């Protein structure tokens, strides 16, 4: 694809509340079809940024350009909003049937009845809720309601979709199945999406780019690989690396196991994956074993890497050791092990973990 005008561009967005700046984004470029996740702790400014970008939060400074044209100058705010759709944490459904809810955005646009019917039915099916079409929205479960809300947003066929923690109040199984449906819908429609979440997994599974936010600023923005494997500072590292999460590409298959290349190191994991596929590897810190450098004795661990101790933090009963093995790795050790290995910062140790200890997440759905 040739370099095209970004679908959304912002310049010097600033939001103040009571004299203090709560959001300060110097620039942000979003290309058509891109899925950008905003991650960060509560209060980082994710929602404020989403609401500013969608012009739902009025008193902000700065400019937003939609396809190169300035909103509120070349485009009216109203015209701009008609190109968007938003889904919030709460489903915010209207007190009517599921069908009417999904149709609401189209009715607002005064589309003709037969067209509305056709489109609503398509999107009810897309989210597996056609059997609920005549049900009152007030009687739906949390998952069903959020599916309706997503179907309502997709029915508009927006050019940009804003998702503000849409799964935050759902239970894990519902969240997982809804994520799958959303992922499929996004792949099918190639809708440009900005997705705020505090769940790193959701961000990793869905997005092409991740922006880590803190205190109203974007601290780091880049591909999932860059952000997860090369956090720019301690905040990003601590936010994305409570446990080790690595992005890798499958380079070899080995009957039940496969080898992924992570920052030019090879890590072996158990599971099914295609050659060339991008996968997310999650390693729990308690599954990483540390030993002193000369001892490279044979163990059942398939992954053994020398690494430098970057930081040791006490977590009460045990210590958290952050290592740099060419990729970041976190291990938990007891005080006793810390002493017997005489671990300290800058020291080199051998880290090992079994192929079976890696939790593999495949990025592209089925």
């Amino acid at each position, binding site marked *: 694809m040739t370099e095209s005008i970004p679908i959304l561009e912002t310049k010097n967005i600033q939001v103040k509340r009571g004299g203090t700046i709560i959001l300060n984004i110097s620039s942000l470029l979003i290309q058509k079809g891109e899925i950008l996740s905003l991650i960060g702790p509560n209060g980082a400014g994710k929602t404020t940024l989403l*609401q500013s970008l*969608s012009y*739902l939060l009025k008193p902000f400074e700065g400019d937003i350009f939609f396809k190169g044209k300035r909103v509120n100058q070349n485009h009216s705010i*109203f015209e701009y*909003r*008609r190109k*968007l*759709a*938003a889904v*919030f944490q*709460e489903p*915010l459904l*209207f*007190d009517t049937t599921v069908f009417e809810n999904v149709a*609401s*955005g189209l009715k*607002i*646009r005064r589309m003709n009845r037969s067209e509305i019917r056709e489109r609503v039915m398509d999107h009810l099916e897309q989210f597996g809720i056609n059997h609920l079409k005549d049900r*009152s*929205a*007030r*009687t739906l479960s949390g998952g069903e309601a959020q599916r309706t809300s997503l179907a*309502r947003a997709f029915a*508009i066929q927006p050019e940009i979709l*804003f998702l503000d923690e849409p799964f935050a109040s759902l239970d894990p199984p519902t969240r997982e199945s809804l994520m799958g449906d959303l992922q499929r819908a996004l792949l099918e429609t190639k809708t440009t999406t900005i997705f705020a979440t505090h769940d790193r997994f959701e961000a990793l599974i869905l997005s092409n780019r991740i922006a880590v936010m803190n205190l109203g600023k974007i601290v780091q923005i880049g591909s999932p690989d860059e952000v997860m494997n090369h956090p720019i500072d301690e905040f990003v590292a601590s936010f994305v690396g409570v446990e080790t999460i690595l992005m890798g590409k499958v380079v070899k298959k080995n009957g039940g196991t496969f080898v992924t290349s992570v920052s030019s190191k090879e890590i072996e994991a158990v599971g099914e994956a295609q050659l060339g596929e991008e996968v997310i590897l999650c390693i729990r810190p308690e599954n990483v074993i540390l030993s002193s450098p000369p001892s490279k004795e044979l163990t059942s661990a398939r992954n053994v890497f020398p690494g430098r101790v970057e930081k040791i933090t006490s977590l009460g009963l045990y210590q958290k050791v952050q290592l740099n093995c060419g990729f970041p790795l976190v291990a938990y050790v007891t005080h006793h092990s810390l002493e017997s290995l005489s671990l300290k910062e800058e020291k080199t140790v051998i880290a090992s973990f079994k192929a079976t200890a890696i939790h593999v997440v495949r990025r592209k759905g089925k």
Partner: protein
Amino acid sequence: MALIFEGIKKAFWLLITCDPEVMRITFLSLQVSGTATLISLFIGISIGTTVALSKFPGRRMVVSLINTGMGLPPVVVGLFVTIFLWRNGPLGFFGILYTPGAMIIAQTVIASPIVMGITLAAIQHLPEKLRLQILALGATRIQMVWILIKEAKLPLLAAMMAGFGGVISEVGASIMVGGNIKGYSRVLTTATVMETSRGNFDIAIALGIILLVLAYFINLILTQIQQRERPR
């Protein structure tokens, strides 16, 4: 006791025979209070929604005023409407004092703050993000307000019942601005007051029963609509 019993008997007789005077009074009551309720719905919902959705200095004071207005004493309303419509008053040139028109005005003044106050609370009670969601669906401001009103329809029907209940049972203002003129501005409440003062308890009881039955049936119809809307 015999007096009450006798009264109830006479009341039923008047009702069964469809006494023309009683019927005329009943229809005028419905006409005046119905019209006043409709006008106050228009005023109350428009202003109530506007105040609920806007931010301006002194908003709290306005909201307090509306809430105070919900309990406006009818005699005070009657007094001021009389002064305004008095021959030498600011609106005296209309010449409508002691007419059903004057009663509609007074009852509208009583019912509007009731509808306004309930509308204000109902719209404010909707989730704040619902407004953002409606705008994000591409609605114009007018479409947004209309959708919000539809979302608040259950409390708005309650506002309608409260407004109608307030004016159909009101006597002070009606007697002051309507004058209780036989065959012209006599309504159920003013007639009940007059007949009671004359000692005609049977007619007064009949009028009282009609008033209660009327209020009951109108509320029954509105409740039916309201409860039908409630999802099962």
